């Protein structure tokens, strides 16, 4: 047994109290950590690049550190939706893509209007209102737009010159002819394909359909895949593939495969978000640094004459899980990221800003060569498909039928009719 005395007990108590105070002081000095779930690119544009660490001031002001959990597209949403179903969560804030902003998921997130009334984000009307409304339900806002990806045509200027073309295609009717002329074998043996699409996604073909006067699902939730516009788009895709103007393994190529193929000079033209031009022109990873340019050709002659262009865009919003423990801190972080100044800084780091005014900022115009084109595209862009609860199934049906038409397993008419027949029952009843 350990002998105890009054003096010993007093000394032990004092020592314990001193240790407790020291631990408390250390805890106060140590920043509090907050978890954010996002894609790696969201973290990158806030912490790395020519504008530096955008969130440094916020971290110091709040004695906080951010624990970024960065995942791939499906995994981000799976993780955050699972977290949001728990009774409480360590996740402070999450980035959610517009395709996942469906009515059933809003109930898992915090309505943001009370926060905006109490501690407003400056000039909220400056955000693209289409994006804000996509993240609204029953008159409540649930997300603050933070990043978009508007698509454009990226083309390899060196190949155009090699093939005697003095300008990129300007309308959809020129696309097949350009792809044909840009499909060739170079002197070094490289097989070049004129055009590439993301054949495991829908946005490129939907853009072609819109340029042909059609669509997949209209804004009032009607599936019009069996109409002439989409059938024409499927015919174009089929022709591009059957004539060997696209890589033969296109259906198995993922986005990263596509980027590598463009960088290596295997694909001459490709539809991608504007921001990808940085990757295509990167001297460390591209065989043609500085030779990739952007344009838009997803438009018909008539649309072009009217000054219209077809651009598809997806976008991300920041949301607060309803079960988050640190909701006020989450709002403070969202407010910081959304400020006008930080929007510009993140854009200089490579973000595509959701604030319309950002594109008038001289710093952005000076540092991002495609800023004006992107601003114009953003004004006229639409999501490739409106969000609804079963949109993921609709996307898969579209891809299945589109690939079947492209590879010759079905006629474009039959594929379009199948899309319409199978997608219509999935749409919400209006």
């Amino acid at each position, binding site marked *: 047994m350990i002998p105890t005395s009054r003096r010993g007990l007093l000394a032990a108590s004092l020592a314990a109290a001193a240790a407790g105070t020291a631990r408390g002081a250390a805890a106060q000095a140590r920043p509090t950590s907050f978890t954010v779930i996002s894609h790696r690119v969201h973290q990158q544009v806030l912490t790395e690049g020519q504008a530096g660490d955008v969130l440094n001031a916020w971290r110091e002001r709040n004695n906080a550190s951010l624990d970024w959990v960065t995942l791939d597209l499906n995994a981000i949403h799976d993780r955050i939706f699972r977290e949001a179903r728990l009774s409480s969560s360590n996740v402070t804030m999450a980035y959610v893509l517009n395709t996942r902003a469906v009515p059933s998921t809003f109930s898992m997130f915090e309505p943001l209007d009370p926060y905006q009334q109490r501690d407003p984000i400056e000039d909220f009307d400056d955000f693209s209102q289409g994006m804000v409304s996509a993240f609204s339900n029953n008159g409540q806002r649930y997300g603050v737009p933070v990043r978009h990806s508007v698509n454009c045509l990226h083309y390899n200027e060196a190949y155009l010159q090699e093939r005697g073309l003095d300008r990129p295609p300007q309308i959809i009717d020129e696309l097949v002819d350009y792809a044909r002329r840009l499909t060739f074998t170079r002197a070094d043996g490289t097989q070049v394909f004129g055009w590439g699409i993301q054949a495991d996604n829908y946005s490129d073909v939907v853009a072609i359909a819109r340029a042909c006067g059609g669509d997949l699902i209209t804004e009032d939730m009607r599936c019009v895949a069996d109409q002439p516009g989409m059938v024409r788009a499927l015919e174009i895709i089929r022709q591009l593939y059957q004539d060997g103007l696209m*890589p033969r393994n296109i259906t198995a190529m993922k986005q990263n495969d596509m980027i590598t193929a463009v960088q290596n000079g295997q694909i001459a033209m490709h539809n991608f978000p504007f921001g990808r031009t940085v990757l295509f022109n990167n001297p460390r990873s591209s065989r043609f640094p500085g030779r990739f340019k952007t344009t838009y050709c997803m438009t018909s002659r008539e649309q072009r004459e009217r000054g219209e262009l077809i651009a598809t865009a997806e976008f991300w919003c920041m949301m607060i899980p309803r079960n988050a423990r640190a909701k006020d801190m989450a709002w403070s972080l969202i407010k910081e990221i959304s400020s006008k100044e930080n929007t510009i800084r993140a854009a200089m780091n490579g973000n595509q800003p959701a604030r319309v005014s950002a594109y008038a900022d001289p710093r952005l115009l000076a540092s991002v060569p495609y800023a004006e084109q992107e601003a114009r595209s953003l004004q006229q862009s639409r999501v490739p498909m409106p969000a609804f609860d079963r949109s993921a199934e609709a996307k898969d049906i579209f891809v299945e039928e589109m*690939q079947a038409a492209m590879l010759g397993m079905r006629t474009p008419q039959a594929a379009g009719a199948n899309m319409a027949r199978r997608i219509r029952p999935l749409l919400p009843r209006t």
Partner: protein
Amino acid sequence: MRRFGLPQLLMLAPAQLLLVAFIAIPSVYVFWLSFTESSYGKEAVFVGLANYAGIWEDDAFWRALRNTLLVINVIVYGELLLSLALAAVFVQGIPFRGLVLAIILMPYAISEVVAVVMWKYMLDPNIGSIARALAALGLPDFAWATNPTHGLVLVCIISIWLHLPFTFIIVYAAMLAVPKELYEAAKIDGANGWQRFRHITVPGILGAVLVALIFRYILSFRLFSEVWLLTAGGPARQTEVLAVYLYKQAFTYANFGMGAATGWIMVVISGLVAAVYVVLLQRKGFRRDA
């Protein structure tokens, strides 16, 4: 006679509790989930057999089931035949036995993801080394990305290459265990090579072969990464297998009820297949040794 009392029960309890906590309870939960309509942000609603009925009417499910059964039979029996052939050569004795053995076992040490990506690049029709070599030899295109049959053939090749070591090791060990005296006696009696294999080797290794078959059937039924990383079930969902179908239902469409129902259907089918081999094993393998 050995007694089975409380001490033995207590010693087994931790393992049993783990099985209950991590296998039995989740399985029961998933079984219940298969009778509900459930997704993110929605309370699960009991829908009876609607998910099973939905699967029954889904063409994609039947195509995935057909692909799965086709592919796993090719994989399991392909592995078995190759293992038998290799093991038969090995027991005869070959030069550099250790080195050759290491080469055969090597794929088992490679991550499935790395292996599939490696094969994918080697067979890329535009830049792949194997694809270019085949083209240089004047052979027709191996269009695994756009031709579903070619795609499934490549899945089989990769899977056999990856998992051959498992079956081979079991079969080889079993062959080594067959008493040499039996072969010597058969030789003296005038049995030829095939007769020795048919009447000595096969009965001697049958138990081990059945064990290998049971394990490989059950594991192959979960075939996922080879298909997902290579074709993702495409083109046009023609190379989809059951595990990919389940993944899409549960994690792409967030339809947990359908995902759970698919999971249970997979358990029942693979259980039935395994049961056939367990019965065979019982009759021809273990019972004889009891």
